């Protein structure tokens, strides 16, 4: 039995739930869904398009502790051998707790998951994404967090599954109180979902130049704006736009790096991009090693020239 765990978002199913369904199908056997949240009924109906049975638990699941407790209880009741989470922040926070509660193994932030010789194996990154490793669970049950957007979403199954909505037992002992949540400002288009990312670094010289060069190019390409840590630390851009080890990990079709030298911490957040373009005045900058197309030159001149060239192409 594979248990898929997800937390509803504004009453809807998170897109990553269909990726968990894909992972569950790859493993085969029985599967069941668990949808947690204040308003889980509609999301549970959506998830029932993928799995034959879904339990929706209505309650407060803002904290990872509550998510973990509910998931572990359900897994135990079902005798689940695999528990799947999406490796978003909440999932990465709850999954280790579930593994400890169940006395099982954790396969974290995986990009592929399969059975081999009776064991569960997965692929994941390590060493700041420079290394790809294959890991095997040697304890059971196995809790897995699946890297968002690493797996193709499953297609809905033929018939709708059965849904039951229950009230979550009163939980929490008051040792952790979740207060206000402030939405990240900036990003119009979520970085991780963008097909094109145009990112800027210190080479742009100032917050004003960054806005003048990076923003219009991102807009012209229908993409999102990304930034390096140095730029975020300098206060030029919000943290929500940071790409790298302590920021977001992105893998767009096209990544354009403007005035970015390419520190490993930054590369670890973007080196899975399909096509990379780099513009930097230093021909020896490490960013050129991961670039498909490079222009050695002043980003202040090349950036606007790229914008003009893209517009020219679009105009035919």
């Amino acid at each position, binding site marked *: 039995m594979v248990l898929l765990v997800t937390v509803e978002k504004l009453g809807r199913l998170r897109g990553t739930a269909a990726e968990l369904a894909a992972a569950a199908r790859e493993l085969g056997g029985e599967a069941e869904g668990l949808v947690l949240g204040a308003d889980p009924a509609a999301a549970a109906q959506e998830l029932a398009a993928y799995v034959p049975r879904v339990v929706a638990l209505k309650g407060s699941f803002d904290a990872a*502790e509550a998510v973990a407790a509910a998931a572990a209880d359900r897994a135990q009741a079902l005798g689940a051998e695999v528990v799947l989470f999406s490796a978003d922040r909440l999932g990465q926070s709850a999954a280790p707790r579930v593994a400890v509660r169940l006395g099982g193994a*954790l396969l974290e932030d995986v990009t592929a998951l399969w059975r081999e010789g009776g064991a569960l194996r997965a692929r994941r990154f390590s060493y700041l994404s420079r290394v*790809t490793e294959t890991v*095997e669970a040697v304890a059971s049950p196995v809790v897995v967090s699946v890297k968002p957007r690493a797996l193709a979403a499953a297609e809905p199954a033929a018939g709708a599954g059965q849904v039951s909505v229950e009230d979550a037992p009163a939980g929490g002992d008051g040792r952790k109180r979740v*207060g206000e949540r402030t939405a990240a400002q900036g990003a119009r288009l979520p970085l991780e979902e963008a097909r094109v990312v145009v990112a800027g670094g210190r080479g742009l010289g100032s917050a004003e130049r960054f806005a003048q060069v990076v923003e219009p190019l991102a807009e012209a390409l229908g993409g999102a704006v990304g930034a390096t*840590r140095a730029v975020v630390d300098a206060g030029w851009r919000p943290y929500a736009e940071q790409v790298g080890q302590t920021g977001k990990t992105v893998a767009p079709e096209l990544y354009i790096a403007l005035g970015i030298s390419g520190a490993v911490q930054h590369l670890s957040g973007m080196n899975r991009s399909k096509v990379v373009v780099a513009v930097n005045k230093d021909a020896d900058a490490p960013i050129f090693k991961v670039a498909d197309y490079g222009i050695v030159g002043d980003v202040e001149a090349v950036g606007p020239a790229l914008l003009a060239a893209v517009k020219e192409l679009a105009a035919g």
Partner: protein
Amino acid sequence: MKVLTVVRQVPDAEARVRAEGGRVDLSGVTFVMDGMDEYGVEEAIRLREAGHDVEIVAVAVGPEHFAEALRRALALGADRAVHVVTDEQLDPVTLAGVVAQVAREEGADLVLTGGKQADWDSAALGPAVAEHLGWPHSDWTTSLALEGRELRLQHDVDDGVEELTVTLPAVVTTQQGLNEPRYPTLPNIMKAKRKELQVRDLAGLGSPAPRVRVVSQEVQVRPRLNKVVGGDPAEAAREVARLLRDEAKVI
């Protein structure tokens, strides 16, 4: 109160990581205290500097050379260090059980650890230690203040920043922005040599069996075209735009 700050000694971010025969080969690589663990050590020191009565114990579970991270923590301001020496590759959940046992024996009130260490790329240690101990946790923490037995925290969540109030004992994992770590001074490095660095073995902590095994590792190299386009900015830009449309087919 007692603060445990967990540290790992990891390859320098600029180090070239190689793989040989399906294993990462770290020979010749420079190691440093993990940058995110450093935020934890710094935060513990700042609690003391803010006037709280804290004893800071730096803890590492890992091979011999992890002692360097502990010595650095001592030079920065930790009072004592505990090194559980093992060459065994423990997965984060298993290693968390060892840290939890040390925290129990020490009677810790707060455990600080990096949000995601640069060797195993895992964010699991903090939440797993908390679960082993039955404590609450805050991960990706960007702001921390202690009032009595209450921590007021801000931490990164998927779509923004969330405020938390957590009652001690608790586990806190770090995020960039929590603080700006200091450097050890030469006198403090000298003084640190006289501080206690206790060495323990895994057997004394229950010899937990790993729950995950690494089957193989390879260095991920995505083949890149590395085409450098020359000419004046306008020409070069036009050529790159054309290549993106006609060759890469991404615009």
